[in-house]
């Protein structure tokens, strides 16, 4: 409120001091306000929408079409959605995805939801993309993914009989460039909001949890047992990730340098972004390299599989013994709680299907 007042007064000041020339030449389509779910509104800061890429109806629709269209790949065979499938909360059930020529990557694909709430705006497992728009430049020209060049992608779109008109409607010009492509897709990705899990409804007082799920929450929040909340959120931070980078004790010898490979800082070797625990029911396999096929394997890792390496996070406890050694009951309950964070209405949302 005070801030609003300040803006208002400053605006007044500007108007009264300067002759305002209206150089707002930028065309914008029909503005859309991202609907913020109640559970986010009550608990966390508003989403990050860059000033130079506001959401519009036309932009979102165009971004969605591009996301599902193989036209961006070199040989017209692969769409973003091939490695980011709606039914898997927009990740790939395969451990490693295949590029258009069958080449195989070394990292598991990532689920895509609540991306506008990644306040740090570090994308990829290693954080090397500093905005969503920047991230989207990568897969199109990545040789092991869509293996295209941007000039080539631009001319395919330009030559298409629908796209020039759709870009005209979204951005006010039918001359297509890569920046507009990434902006449109980013707009669509920002609409992928997931906030309707059983646990969300529990927090809103609309549904009960089972005793097992409730005990699982206790394990999650207990420093002596799971202590997951110091990295993966809590009921007041229902993103269920800190979007920060850690080494969670998976390897004695680090091969994929993660954040450190991008920053060059040895203190960051082997650090990866904590994944969100939402929608785990659909996003197996787990971790940056998809090494764990099931949630049980993940829980066993934290319970007795931790190993020491130079950059391990100090939050990883009892590393010499492999972890906290949860009881079988605690493990089962933790799993039940984690699964209560999955949101079937997200993967079935017709707005997000091709």
């Amino acid at each position, binding site marked *: 409120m005070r801030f609003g007042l300040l803006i208002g007064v400053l605006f007044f000041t500007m108007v009264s001091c300067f002759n305002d020339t209206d150089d707002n030449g930028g065309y914008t389509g029909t503005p859309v306000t991202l609907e913020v779910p109640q559970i986010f509104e009550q608990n966390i800061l508003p989403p990050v929408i860059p000033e130079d890429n506001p959401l519009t109806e036309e932009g979102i629709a165009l971004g969605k079409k591009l996301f599902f269209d193989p036209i961006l790949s070199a040989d017209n065979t692969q769409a973003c959605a091939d490695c980011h499938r709606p039914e898997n909360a927009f990740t790939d059930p395969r451990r490693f995805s295949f590029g258009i020529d069958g080449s195989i990557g070394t990292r598991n694909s990532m689920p895509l939801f609540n991306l506008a709430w990644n306040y740090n705006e570090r994308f990829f497992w290693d954080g090397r993309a500093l905005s969503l728009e920047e991230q989207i430049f990568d897969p199109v020209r990545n040789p092991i993914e869509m293996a295209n060049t941007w000039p080539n992608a631009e001319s395919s779109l330009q030559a298409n009989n629908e796209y020039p008109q759709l870009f005209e409607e979204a951005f006010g010009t039918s001359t297509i460039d890569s920046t507009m492509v990434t902006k449109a897709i980013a707009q669509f990705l920002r609409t992928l909001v997931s906030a309707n899990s059983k646990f969300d409804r529990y927090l809103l007082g609309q549904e009960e949890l089972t005793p097992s799920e409730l005990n699982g929450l206790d394990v999650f929040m207990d420093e002596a047992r799971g202590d997951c909340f110091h990295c993966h959120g*809590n009921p007041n931070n229902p993103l269920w990730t800190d979007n920060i980078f850690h080494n969670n004790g998976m390897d004695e010898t680090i091969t994929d340098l993660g954040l450190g490979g991008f920053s060059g800082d040895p203190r960051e070797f082997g650090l990866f972004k904590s994944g969100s625990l939402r929608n785990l029911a659909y996003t197996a396999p787990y971790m940056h390299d998809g090494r764990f096929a099931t949630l049980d394997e993940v829980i066993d890792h934290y319970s007795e599989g931790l190993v020491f390496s130079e950059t391990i996070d100090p939050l990883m406890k009892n590393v010499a013994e492999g972890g906290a050694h949860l009881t079988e009951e605690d493990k089962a309950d933790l799993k039940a709680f984690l699964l209560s964070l999955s949101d079937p209405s997200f993967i079935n949302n017709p707005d997000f299907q091709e």
Partner: protein
Amino acid sequence: MKKIALLLCLSIAFMSCESDDDNNPPDNVSVEFTFTHNWDGDNITNADFDQIQYTNENGEQQSISKLVYLISDITFTDSDGNSFDAGDYNLVDVRSNSNLDFTPDIQIPPGDYTVSFTFGFDDEDNESGIYLDLNSADGGWNVPEGLGGGYHYMRLEGMFIDNTSAEVGYQYHVIRANDNSTNPITLQDTSFEVNLGTISVGTTSTNVEVQMNVAEWFKNPNTWDLNVLNSVLMPNFAAQILMFENGSNGVFDLGVVTTVD
């Protein structure tokens, strides 16, 4: 408060349009605080994190990998006993250099004040879930409801060499002392007031350096043994009292005050 903000903005608005050369009393001013950190006098910056280079009072070698803490209610009290307090708070993250500078959202008349702040949140402010920016910070700066809720005061983490020569993590997490073995839970407000002494606030600008000596958390009056107290300290009532005693005994000092009239 809102009226003050409006008046202030209007006065800025006028100043920016007209040249001012009147003889009214000096305008109210804001005061900037800069938080600096050291280990017994050695400055701590980003490059010092994750290096096992410090020896604590008990003799263990240790590193710092994370140092994030909350301060609140910076209060200015003048010689007539009037106090000014914006009632706001600041979450300092030393490794990422965020919020090392903080200007409380209040303007006060230039002059001499005794200045204090609260380390953490006192019970009046330490209410679960009500600060959306803190809920969003660091994956959630919250304390589990089972431990009385509210917010962390500090997360100091790193590695140390234990008495078997193994490199082990520690989590020196400071929160409100709680004992949940009693019903209802026993809570004790272990935030504390830091008194910086008298500071003269200038007519143009004032910057106040607040120093934290991290070594003091392990030193005085309680010599801290990381071999015993390294982990699961949040639910440990006795450990929180020790932290409170050490924290309120010389961890913070007033540094350089720069005043421009």
